[in-house]
């Protein structure tokens, strides 16, 4: 069956609503309209206004309300309409969602999911294209999950809804329409397990979410130039799968981290740092980073320059000191930002 990522997410919500009466879906425009990306399409029709409903337009309200509902045993799945429109809920997320189990010594768990369509590549206007995963990944107490294909989208969302802890579920909006041939329901590896999307021997690309297809394309192109590139899709940023990443890099000896978010003090820096800590003596060159530029996300007509593309990844691979170059200088490759 050919399924889009958006369709898989919709099916996951359907199946979760069917499986557990305590699951509730709400947010802005998720009811009658079915969400601006149609991820909740038809849910109100099928399950009624009680199970999938529109809320007033207030993100802190949505998240805080979900917290309260958890106290009475519900499992809310809320939608933030776009990445930057989750920021009004930042205090509720960092000070309560992330901390509730900890601050109540385990008495209050929050089995809730916050779905965030994120990142760019769809020609959206400002504030509609932020890669905000770094903020959440940096906050202890949040699980941060991001699928890159329909099967993972389904499986990870079901797992997120079943998880006893809050999950920030980051949906790469550029991949909503990406297709895959799968049967649903399906079950993929659990949280904390990365996936090797392509095998290779010379370089390991570590990536996630919206950058996975780009990385795979780059690997394809690199093959033509004689480099055998392994591509690892993290799937969950928190918890992080050190094992899969380290095993690969120790073997290949070279690593490029690819992420659309700006590089400074975010997930790509973390990956580079972790890999180096654990694979130092296996590395033939420093881990390179290919990330978004250290600027606000630009207007649509400039996004192709902004986004880490195949060329930029190939360029990073080519600089991995294949013939013993000296240290990179300031003007060289590496994390910008």
């Amino acid at each position, binding site marked *: 069956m050919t399924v889009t990522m958006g369709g898989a997410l919709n099916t996951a919500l359907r199946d979760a609503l069917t499986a557990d009466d305590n699951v509730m879906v709400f947010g802005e425009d998720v*009811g009658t309209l079915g969400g601006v990306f149609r991820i909740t399409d038809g849910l109100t029709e099928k399950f009624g206004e009680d199970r999938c409903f529109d809320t007033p337009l207030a993100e802190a309200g949505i998240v805080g309300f979900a917290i309260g509902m958890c106290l009475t045993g519900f499992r809310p799945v809320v939608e933030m309409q776009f990445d930057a429109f989750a920021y009004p809920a930042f205090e509720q997320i960092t000070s309560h969602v992330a901390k509730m189990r900890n601050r109540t010594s385990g008495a209050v768990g929050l089995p809730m999911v916050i779905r965030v369509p994120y990142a760019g590549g769809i020609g959206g206007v400002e504030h509609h294209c932020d890669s905000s995963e770094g903020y959440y990944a940096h906050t202890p107490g949040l699980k941060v999950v991001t699928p890159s294909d329909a099967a993972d989208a389904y499986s990870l969302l079901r797992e997120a809804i079943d998880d006893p802890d809050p999950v920030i579920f980051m949906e790469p909006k550029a991949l909503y329409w990406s297709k895959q041939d799968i049967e649903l329901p399906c079950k993929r590896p659990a949280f904390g397990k990365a996936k090797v999307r392509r095998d290779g021997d010379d370089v390991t690309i570590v990536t996630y979410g919206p950058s996975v297809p780009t990385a795979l394309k780059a690997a394809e192109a690199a093959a033509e130039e004689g480099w055998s590139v392994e591509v690892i899709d993290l799937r969950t940023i928190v918890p992080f799968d050190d094992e899969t990443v380290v095993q690969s890099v120790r073997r290949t000896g070279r690593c490029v981290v690819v992420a659309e978010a700006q590089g*400074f003090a975010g997930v790509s820096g973390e990956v580079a740092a972790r890999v180096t800590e654990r694979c130092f003596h296996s590395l033939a060159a420093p881990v390179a980073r290919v990330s978004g530029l250290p600027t606000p996300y630009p207007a649509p007509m*400039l996004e192709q320059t902004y986004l880490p593309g195949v*060329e930029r990844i190939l360029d990073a691979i080519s600089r991995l000191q294949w013939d013993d170059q000296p240290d990179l200088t300031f003007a060289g490759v590496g994390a910008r930002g």
Partner: protein
Amino acid sequence: MTPYVLSLGIDLGNMPGRRDTGVMETTAETMTAALLPSPNPVQLIDPTGAEVEQSGTRRDYSMPSAARLRATWHAMVVGRRFDVQATALTKQGRLAVYPSSRGQEACQVGATLSIGSGDWLFPTYRESMALVTRGIDPIEVLSLLRGDSHCGYDPIATKTAAQCTPLSTQLVHAAGAAYGERRRGTDHVALAFIGDGATSEGDFHEALNFAAVFEAPVVFFVQNNKYAISVPLSKQTKAPSLAYKGIGYGVPSEQVDGNDPAAVLAVMDVALEHCRSGKGPFLIEAHTYRMDAHTNADDATRYRSSDEVTAWLERDPIARVEAWLRARGELNDDMVAAANAEAEARAADLRERMNLEPAVDPMSLFDNVFAQRTPQLEEARAMVRAELDAEVGE
């Protein structure tokens, strides 16, 4: 300030002859009269173009002059044509997206024409028509929606903030700018637009409170067009009407028929007079309707009936002023034809200019992150420069 704030004071002694609750007591009448909106929306011209006799409003509103109404009518004709043209441009792929304000002309044009060039305007993504009315080049207005830059005009030179997408955040800026004007000793005000749905955001609350506390001259203008994308007002609030939110901040409020340009002008006049005389902010709720979908990308048939839309056609803001003006001999066929021709010419000009590809320089990415580029920006810039040079070389 007005007497109602007295009830906040902490009463240190016992006044003879009244109860002691630690609160200065006052009467409900004083407060409600000063702050609550009229029980029904202010309307001066009804949908048929007939003048409405005034009764029961909390303040006196008077019919604007025929000349002013004609100028407003003219700007609405031009504004609507611009709006329709912009929607058409999305179909031709010349605009990434367009949120139409067709049907909201009385608000967009009426409110904007009421302020002066020294006053500030704080628009949302829906205020393209207001910006055109303000005299900003339509092509600059559409920059954001065409996708060549986040804002096509100079907000300082035009005293018009960049169109704002994060809902209700601009209201707080308006409060700050208006307070800044007060501190500079001017009588400039800020006109801040917001939609019905966005009144649910916390920033709406904080903006009204800050403006009230700092007596910042802001007119908060809510265009209640009944929907926030697909969500109808009945799911947004249980308030009697949105104008009832003002009293909670000590901000006088009014509700107005947002499809009646005369009423919008009249209420704006009262609000501006209030602000300019140093009495702080004013809240207006204009009842109107979004005739088109949320944007061209939206499918409004999913959440509302065409009957509902059709009913609002009869409350058209342009038609009713036109009828009123014609009935008084203030408008004739020639003038209408001339206005239409002008609107058409402007639309054609816009169409033509929008057909040219805008020049966007990738290297501009690194400008204006900071006033001066950091070493990290220089580094990234050098990389992109090299990429572009390599492309040219290929």
